[in-house]
């Protein structure tokens, strides 16, 4: 293709938009509305997932070991096994094995002294522990294990219970199940809504483009009679569709940026206490994914909508 033809095609693509300004406006509005809903949904889902992830980070499994001092006791919320005494070297080795597991994000060793100090302070105040000459929890060394994926908790527990030195594994199956269930539910719901939104946008945009092009079917007809190739006829319409898609994506991105920025600042300023428990996604973080995805969707929908509709009118 000659450069002059390429330039002509680009010029025609641009001028088509202004030549059919009402159709162009309708198409931009349709794409904008769909991508606005998509953007809002994406922002909500991202924040929800971020909050759930923060909650997941706080979920831990605690593992206790057999020791010589004192009797084994049942605290009522874990599994208990009879087995071998854990030496210090073996404890360290088990700690390393736990840390190497893929589902584990962090392992913290809690010595018997630390455990007693912590329990006494939490229950009765700092000076309470000092009144005891001996540590009632002597030998109760443990590991606090934090998971990167709570859905793997039961696999980890089963593995821990298979270690002969392990006396008790304390965990909350309900929390893990609720969190992984919530995660799955969010993923399914958001996938479902996004699929519906995309289907609706492609349907609406195809119809809008079809109306715009059927108005110009006469023009396409003339082009074909004069001897225009399919590419020559199609290219300006496809370019026009892609430009409409691009503008249709930029508008909601701008609106969502302003709204999200304002809402985030407002929530963090007015309810600063929330930020301690909830992990909100920053504007930059959100738009790092939302911008390319929205632009790609807008341009892609414009491209597909126009190319399919023009094809129907090329059979002259």
């Amino acid at each position, binding site marked *: *293709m*000659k450069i*002059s*033809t390429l330039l*002509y095609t680009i010029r025609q693509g641009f001028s088509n938009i202004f*030549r059919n300004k009402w159709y162009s406006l309708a198409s931009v509005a349709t794409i904008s509305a769909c991508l606005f809903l998509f953007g809002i949904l994406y922002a909500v889902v991202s924040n929800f997932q971020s909050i759930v992830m923060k909650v997941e980070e706080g979920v831990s499994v605690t593992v206790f070991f057999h020791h010589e001092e004192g009797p084994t006791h049942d605290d009522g919320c874990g599994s208990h096994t009879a087995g071998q005494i854990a030496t210090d070297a073996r404890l360290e080795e088990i700690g390393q094995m736990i840390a190497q597991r893929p589902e584990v994000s962090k392992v913290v060793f809690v010595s018997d002294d630390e455990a007693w100090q912590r329990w006494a302070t939490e229950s009765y105040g700092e000076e309470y522990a000092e009144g005891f000459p001996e540590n009632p929890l002597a030998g109760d060394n443990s590991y606090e294990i934090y998971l990167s994926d709570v859905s793997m908790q039961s696999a980890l527990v089963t593995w821990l219970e298979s270690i002969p030195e392990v006396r008790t594994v304390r965990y909350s199956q309900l929390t893990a199940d609720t969190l992984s269930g919530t995660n799955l539910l969010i993923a399914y719901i958001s996938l479902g809504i996004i699929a519906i939104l995309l289907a609706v946008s492609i349907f609406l945009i195809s119809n809008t483009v079809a109306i715009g092009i059927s108005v110009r079917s*006469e*023009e396409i*007809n*003339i*082009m*074909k*009679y*004069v*001897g*225009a*190739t*399919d590419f*020559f006829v199609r290219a300006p319409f496809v370019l026009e569709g892609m430009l409409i898609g691009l503008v249709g994506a930029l508008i909601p991105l701008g609106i969502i940026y302003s709204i999200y920025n304002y809402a985030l600042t407002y929530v963090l300023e007015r309810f600063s206490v929330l930020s301690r428990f909830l992990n909100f996604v920053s504007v930059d973080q959100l738009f790092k994914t939302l911008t390319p995805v929205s632009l790609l969707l807008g341009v892609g929908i414009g491209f597909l909508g126009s190319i399919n509709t023009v094809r129907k009118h090329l059979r*002259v």
Partner: protein
Amino acid sequence: MSNRELKRKKREQMIAENGVIYLDNVSKVYSTGSPALNGITLNIGQGEFVFIVGDSGSGKSTLIKLLLRELTATSGSVYVMGHDLARLKHRQIPKFRRNIGVVFQDFRLLNDRNVYENVAFAQRIVEVHPAEIRRNVPIMLATVGLAGKYKAKTRQLSGGEQQRVALARALINHPSILLADEPTGNLDPKNSWEIMQLLEEINGSGTTVVVVTHNREIVNAMKKRVVTMKKGVIVSDEEGGEYIDED
């Protein structure tokens, strides 16, 4: 000799033997089952001026569509400029159509563009250099008598002027054949005669002109070859013939 040269020689031989338009026992039946053409055979030689006349439903429009390869024949063969249209691939059709200029009763102009743009458009399609387009279009507009109107929007023109723009667009790429489908159908007698004179001039320069018309007065006055169609068959084909209304 290359394959392309062989094909060109074959086409030239076909034109020399059978003319630029050759229909060999052509029939066309639409998917609804109604026959539009029934075993038509017709030869039109290089540089001829031919009127195709007949009542509505006689098959004239179907014939034009076959020649433009908008439709394909149900049976028989259609050759235009030596091309067997049944063998033409979809991607070859645009290039083939550049050999044919076409004008319609309703002009079919791009109404949102001016006169110059409408004519230049046909040259852009065949990728003529912009500088050449700027040179060619005013010459063609002068030929059809619209030298001073190149900036006018087509809606601002009279019917006769619009048909001249359509003619200029059809001729700008120097086609071998000009098909005119009821070119005077929307024009008053004065403009009709002016358009026919233009067509005669165009024919005088060597272009084959095929005019489908209902205008008895013009057909009878111009004393050209007249092909009369009725119910999908050719009922008469006479040099210097007349348009006889059988009703």
